[in-house]
């Protein structure tokens, strides 16, 4: 796992600790819709984005929401943004 990926996964795990404390990221199907997988409503989803913005400095616009629908998608997207793409 690259350093960036570790950083991203840690940030997601830490954010979810406040929003869905019982969730074990390792047990989430990384290709399934994340919100369905761990039952996040729209307020939880917003809180997740706010926390990721605070911890990683990445501001995810609403138009990119479809790219972060799954855990794999979210990790890839955030890695890309941290690497300076998009």
């Amino acid at each position: 796992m690259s350093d960036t990926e570790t950083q991203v996964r840690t940030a997601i795990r830490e954010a979810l600790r406040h929003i869905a404390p019982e969730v074990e990221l390792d047990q989430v199907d990384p290709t399934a819709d994340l919100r369905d997988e761990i039952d996040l409503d729209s307020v939880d989803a917003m809180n997740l984005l706010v926390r990721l913005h605070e911890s990683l400095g990445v501001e995810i616009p609403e138009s990119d929401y479809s790219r972060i629908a799954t855990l794999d998608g979210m990790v890839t997207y955030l890695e890309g943004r941290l690497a300076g793409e998009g």
Partner: protein
Amino acid sequence: MSRTYDMPALGAGMESGIVVEWHVEPGQAVKRGDVIGIVDTEKGAIDIEIWDDAEIAEILAPPGTEVPVGEPLLRLKVAGEDVDLDPREDEAPEVEPQEAPASQEAPAPEVAAADVVAPPQAPPSPAPRRRVSPLARRRAEALGVDPERVEGTGPGGAVTAADVEAAAGGDPSPPSPEPTPEPDPAPAPDPSPEPDRQAAMRRAIAAAMTRSKREIPHYYLSHTLSMESTLRRLEEVNRDRPPAERILVAALYIKAVAQGLEAFPELNGFWEDDAFRQADGIHPGLAISLRGGGLVAPALHDAPSRSLEELTSGIRDVVQRARAGRLRGSEVTDPTITVTSLGDRGVDTVFGVIHPPQVAIVGIGTVVERPWAEGGMVGSHRTVTLTLSADHRAGDGHRGSLFLARVAHLLHTGDEL
């Protein structure tokens, strides 16, 4: 002057709460709205607030004590005040705060009344009587001990339940006339483990919903509207904002319901003692499902006057605290109507069950894209279905229908954006 701060009724049907901790100590000055401590209830641990500027004179219920609704927790000193400005506060005789009348704010007076301890049988004594905690008094009654003869070790020499048990010979399990003996309050507070908490919340929901369906003749209305232009504007507004400043569509719903209620106050209040009592403010309670089960509906205070940004941050805050932190007492007690929104992953329509003593609940379904005819054209629109469940004792469907149409109009035009 001195008065007591009593165990608040944190929800209909609450009979008692357990003091978890105090954030204040005798001699400390507190301001209206300050969180002064934590009380454990079937809705979870709740931050309790003070209603007036005052000084804490004495803590009557130490942590670990279970106290019935309406019975004193603290004695307050209110400086230079001759008039009781807050009718919710009792003016209790100083020497016997435990015999104050049940708090008037308790929405379940039958419960509070049942908990008021019988007056003493003995003729009045010239000497001021000892302070005895309500729990100790009940223990004393159960044990056949005269609490006046027990040496008190509690705050200010108050007699605690443990003192009563010690005086009774240390036998904590005598025949008791009470169906459920009180738990020993002596050990340190131990907030219920999660399964107990969930079972207690389930029972509280069961009691409230059973009462609702047994007592409240609901009528139901439904209306579907196009949210297309409003959602487009919302997307426009949110496009350039960082996540923390984006507006949630739930804020639009709350605002529209709150503004609608300004013209239909007969849906904003409580059915009590065979009459409708209109609420002073408009404080919609937002139904929040808890992870692992259960439901709370804390108030978003003064919603009509708050901006969409303020309502969004209020919603985010209250959702996070409902699930992972603590709600405030006022958030739990103040809702004047409930709004239940299924969010963006649910079904089309929700018909809510009214939370007594409220008289209405507005249901908001998931946004659904449908073919929609408007101005002679059929297009693809994002739509939402609103419902109203209202108490037919308090009002009729005609006014309910006008209210729901008003809310739909506010959402459709999206003028708030």
